[in-house]
């Protein structure tokens, strides 16, 4: 079942290039659209300019230009962005904004994908040739 781009686009905001590449591949494999930006300023610019808001923002906290806490606060204060779900991904959850949904790094992919599934709809089914459930567990 194909879905609208809005329902299946995950925005990853993180400055760790290798991690972003892995997440891009994971989300793509799982049937989601992926957008990635490496700093808070570009994240806000994208969110404000795009007509199609993402179904979830995976937001790192320590970012160049504008940090994740500031991005979170600005989004929550902006009527157009306040309803966009945010998952804060950080190595130090004590730094996360109050009330935010938080995932501790290193990210456990099963947990991350379970979270994405709550907010997003796949644009296609994941490839049928994936590993067994047992083999998936890290």
């Amino acid at each position: 079942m194909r879905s609208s781009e809005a329902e299946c686009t995950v925005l990853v905001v993180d400055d760790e290039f290798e991690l972003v590449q892995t997440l891009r591949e994971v989300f793509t494999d799982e049937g989601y659209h992926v957008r990635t930006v490496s700093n808070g300023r570009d994240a806000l610019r994208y969110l404000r300019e795009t007509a199609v808001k993402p179904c979830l923002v995976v937001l790192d906290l320590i970012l160049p230009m504008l940090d994740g806490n500031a991005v979170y606060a600005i989004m929550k204060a902006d009527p157009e962005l306040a309803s966009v779900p945010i998952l804060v991904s950080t190595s130090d959850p004590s730094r996360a904004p109050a009330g935010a949904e938080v995932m501790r790094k290193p990210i456990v992919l099963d947990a991350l994908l379970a979270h994405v599934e709550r907010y997003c709809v796949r644009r296609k089914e994941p490839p049928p040739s994936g590993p067994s459930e047992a083999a998936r567990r890290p």
Partner: protein
Amino acid sequence: MTASVIDRALAPSDSCHMVQLFDNDTSLSEVVSQYLGAGLAAGEMVILIATAAHRSAIRRQLTDRAFDLERAQAAGLYTELDAHDLLAGFLVDGRPDATKFEALVGDRIEAMQQTRPGVRIRAYGEMVDLLWGDDNPAAALELESLWNDFCARQPLALLCAYHAAHFGGDAGETGLEAVCGAHDYVVPREQAGALPDANGRLRELTLLQQRAAALSLEVTRRTALEGDLREALSAATAAHAVADESVRYNELFTRMVGHDLRNPLNAIVTTAHYLTRISTEPKLLRAAQRITSSSMRMARMIEQLLDFTRIQVGKGLHVERGTTDLLQLCQGLVTTLQSTHPGRTIVLASRGVAVGELDAERMTQVLSTLLLNAVHYGDDARPVRLDLDGSDPGSLTVSVHNGGVVSPEVMPLFFAPMHGGLKGEHTQALGLGLYLTRALIRAHGGEIAVHSSAAGGTVVRVELPRQATVEMTA
């Protein structure tokens, strides 16, 4: 008493210019009244030049000594002048004018002398003290000079007075020397003048010299001490700057480890997870598993180093409290540990309700460390026991028991950071686990203790308040 010394200094008809140092008005009025009273008793003419307050006090003392001042005044033997008024009459731009002084003071005294030729005038004056007190010592010394000129011409016994406090500052010694130099005779404060004979005065002088020498030595010692203190202060300031720099570097290190080092590690771990998702190849899966395992161990070490650094720079450990069921948490840990250590027996026993406002993640870290230590360092043949006691309404108690023994020399280092492992062997850990465990227990407001004996094995006992009482940091 001092007046008797003053009297001894006075030749019957010569001029004499004396100075009295005084500490307080009471002692001054006593000295002056004795001095003037002796003059009145000897039939001399007496002049009192003083402030209104001092005149009143001196007059009262003379009256108490049965002098009839009204009668003496009427007979021209006793004259009172106001020091402020008289001074104002001959000061020009803050300095005494010689011509005006002669007209106002000199001529007046000479006129008195002409009424009783051959009778000396005895005067007390404190105009110089007023000038010195007004921070005008030059004018005071000029006035002393005018008095000296007058004494050279006419027989006059003149007693001046200065408050001793005028000479207490840095320039005090110089000022006092100048005042003493302007007089024929100096009457010290205190009781030196009360000494009855020359021998007593010599003894007192010797004592005073000794005190002066001792004071001089003390000043030298204190000056040296002050120098030492300055050096110590300077060294402490420099050490403080070094410590500040060290703290700055520590914080820099924390930031670096916290972000720059963890970021690529996060990518490694997540990417290794990804490999296990996309492949069914057994060799690749085992390799990815090893990457994951090592990376996770490294991630834990980084977390420990960060916690350690936070404690070292005084920031403490933060706990995020929430309703936590310790029993549920312990059950999960025991199950996991039993699966990774199938040869060991781990027994969990509990009583009461083990629920409290605790940081679940941090408590997992604490219990995991205690259980792993019990398994690693305990007696393999004996079970590890985890006892959970929730029977107290205010606190929770956790005891981890193993059959091993901690040697007495290791006991004091049990919770110390990086002491090389409990058995002195190389381990895969940093040696921060138990140190951070204690810090986390304390951050929860609790306490931890260890007891070990050959008979009873080793027990680590943790006591935690169920609720936060005050905000704690480790």
